[in-house]
């Protein structure tokens, strides 16, 4: 057994944003074991003050390039809540369809490009191209489909241009929707292939379990595996009703840790987890048939507390969003698409919007004066909500895996952080680079 371990991963690679892993073990005693997020803050909540209600989405979309559609939707819903703006059923459905495109894009990017190299023992996806060209091309194809899907609904793949409080500035034609539906039907086979590839190396995911609290949206009316509507629930709720999204601050209980420029959160315990596995643990019985099939392939069951299985829950959701979207397009085409006019009268108010980002639940709240100018904002990002949980995982993981030696332990801890699909630049950014000498 290794008596001394000294790990300092400065700027973990293959994650969105910057984080450090620091472990010191001397004579078998753990002296330090930290997940640090020293990323420099970007102060979005301060910057939106004084901006008009219809500029909020344009600004806060830039919190994150990978989940820009999610930030745009959360902020747009918050503005609509504050200004009492109604949204038609058609616009609502098209927005959910837009949101699903980002879930697929982000999940495929994460599992296919960022996690797969760990499972195939490669430093990046590049060396995998000659080794497994067909698998890589299948992943790229699924990623391209997701982006074309975003292009159609959101105006482009990153930073939507079609979202406006009250509805959408542009809607697709029925012909375009029909083509999208055909593409999605063809993508189902690619997703099954990707799942089979991952299944063939799934034994590389460490067998590590730590009981924790899982928080996500929950929608009862109608019961839905939700990313967009509903209230806040948790695996610790034990039958207590869900919390209304306007009261999200009571769930997140944000606090500042000296380890991190991103705020940390806690609810029933000292840490909680959000993301695909949290949604699965709260809502798995509402998955589409293909989503359930993928979960069965991997033996993933409700109540799973292995953080590495978040990667698998993301694959489950890829299948779910594609299958569900095929049905949603049927419904849209049956009803027929109508051009809708948006009309908004600014007023004073405070409102919240809450949606599920690919990496977990996201909260936005804004307050406006009578002219519709923003006077205050509060935003709580999924990765912030996972930081404390990653720290608690580290504290359990290191004693269990430290006898495997420093390199294996470091690799395991890097994989552990990656499995949360962190998006650290959401709200912050860090800069202390140590250059390769």
């Amino acid at each position, binding site marked *: 057994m290794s008596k001394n371990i000294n790990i300092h991963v400065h700027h973990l690679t293959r994650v969105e944003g910057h984080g450090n892993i620091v472990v010191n073990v001397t004579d078998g005693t753990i002296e330090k074991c930290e997940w640090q997020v020293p990323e420099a803050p970007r102060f979005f909540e*301060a910057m939106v003050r004084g901006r008009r209600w219809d500029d909020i989405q344009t600004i806060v979309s830039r919190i994150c390039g990978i989940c820009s559609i999610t930030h745009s939707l959360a902020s747009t819903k918050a503005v609509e809540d504050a200004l009492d703006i109604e949204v038609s059923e058609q616009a609502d459905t098209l927005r959910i369809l837009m949101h699903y495109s980002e879930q697929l894009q982000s999940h495929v990017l994460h599992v296919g490009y960022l996690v797969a190299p760990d499972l195939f023992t490669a430093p990046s996806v590049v060396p995998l191209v000659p080794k497994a060209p067909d698998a890589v091309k299948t992943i790229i194809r699924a990623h391209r489909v997701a*982006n074309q899907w975003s292009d159609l609904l959101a*105006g482009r793949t990153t930073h939507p241009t079609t979202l406006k409080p009250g509805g959408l500035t542009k809607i697709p034609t029925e012909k375009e929707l029909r083509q999208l539906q055909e593409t999605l039907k063809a993508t189902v086979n690619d997703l099954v292939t990707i799942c089979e590839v991952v299944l063939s190396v799934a034994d590389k995911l460490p067998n590590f379990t730590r009981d924790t609290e899982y928080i996500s949206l929950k929608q009862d009316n109608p019961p839905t595996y939700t990313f967009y509507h509903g209230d806040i629930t948790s695996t610790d709720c034990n039958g207590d009703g869900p919390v209304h999204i306007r009261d999200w601050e009571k769930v997140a209980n944000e606090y500042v840790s000296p380890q991190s420029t991103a705020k940390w959160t806690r609810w029933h315990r000292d840490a909680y987890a959000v993301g695909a596995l949290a949604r699965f643990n709260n809502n798995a019985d509402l998955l589409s048939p293909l989503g359930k099939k993928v979960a069965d392939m991997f033996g993933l069951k409700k109540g799973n507390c292995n953080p590495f299985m978040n990667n698998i829950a993301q694959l489950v959701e890829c299948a779910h969003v594609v299958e569900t979207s095929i049905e949603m397009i049927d419904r849209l085409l049956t009803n027929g698409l109508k051009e809708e006019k948006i009309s908004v009268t600014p007023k004073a108010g405070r409102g919240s919007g809450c949606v599920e980002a690919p990496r977990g639940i996201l909260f936005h709240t804004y307050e406006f004066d009578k002219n519709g100018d923003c006077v205050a904002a509060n935003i709580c990002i999924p990765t912030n909500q996972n930081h404390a949980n990653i720290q608690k995982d580290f504290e359990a993981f290191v004693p269990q895996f430290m006898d495997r030696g420093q390199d294996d332990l470091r690799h395991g801890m890097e994989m552990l952080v990656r499995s949360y699909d962190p998006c650290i630049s959401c709200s912050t950014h860090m800069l202390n680079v140590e250059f390769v000498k």
Partner: protein
Amino acid sequence: MSKPRVAIFDFACCEGCQLQIVNLEEEILDLIGVVDVVEWREAMSEQSQEYDIALIEGSITRPEDEERIKEIRKRAKILVALGACATIGGVNKLKNNFDLDEVKTCVYGQDAGMPHLATGMTKAVDEVVPVDFKIHGCPIDRKEFTYVVRCLLMGKTPVIPDYPVCVECKAKENVCRWEYNEVCLGPIIRAGCGARCPSTNFRCFGCRGYVENPNVEAAKEVMDKYGLTIDDLKQKMELFGSKQEPTI
């Protein structure tokens, strides 16, 4: 001949421009075939120490940033600013409209004094080190990115439009956003995006920065015609162009 060594670095930003490189999809395999990507933290574990081309994403917001970008500049033969945060400061510059201590207190409350929360004025990359080329936009346009990279690999100087978005918007036969009472920055903002936002019925908010000699007088005439004020225009110009020319 050895392949050009390319590195990608990110500073304060959303990393959406790097994502556009990933979003090249199948085309990225061609790119990997002709260049040697030696450092790209978001996608790879390898690191390097000298680069033929360094692509810089993000704004410079702290003294440590300035040191890091200066070090990268020393190691890079060609330095390219990638996207609005790097080329003009982007939305990050909204922060410069406020007192920095007040901004910190607004977000972190009583913990604002903690040393790791320090921040400075937001700067575009060329406010700190010389920049050889700029790829504009928020996010960058994928076609423009591959065009610029192709030019650099062939030793050519890329030609970036220096006419306003209105030119491309008119060519697409879009109805002017001003007709909908929206303050659109098309008349003064650099084209090259294919008027993507107005083409989806969304006003131009200026992510590609101003053209070299913006026709401010014409913009004023347009505002008079539609009964809007200088303040309306300034409000919109601040989104991506806080504390920048042209001043009106």
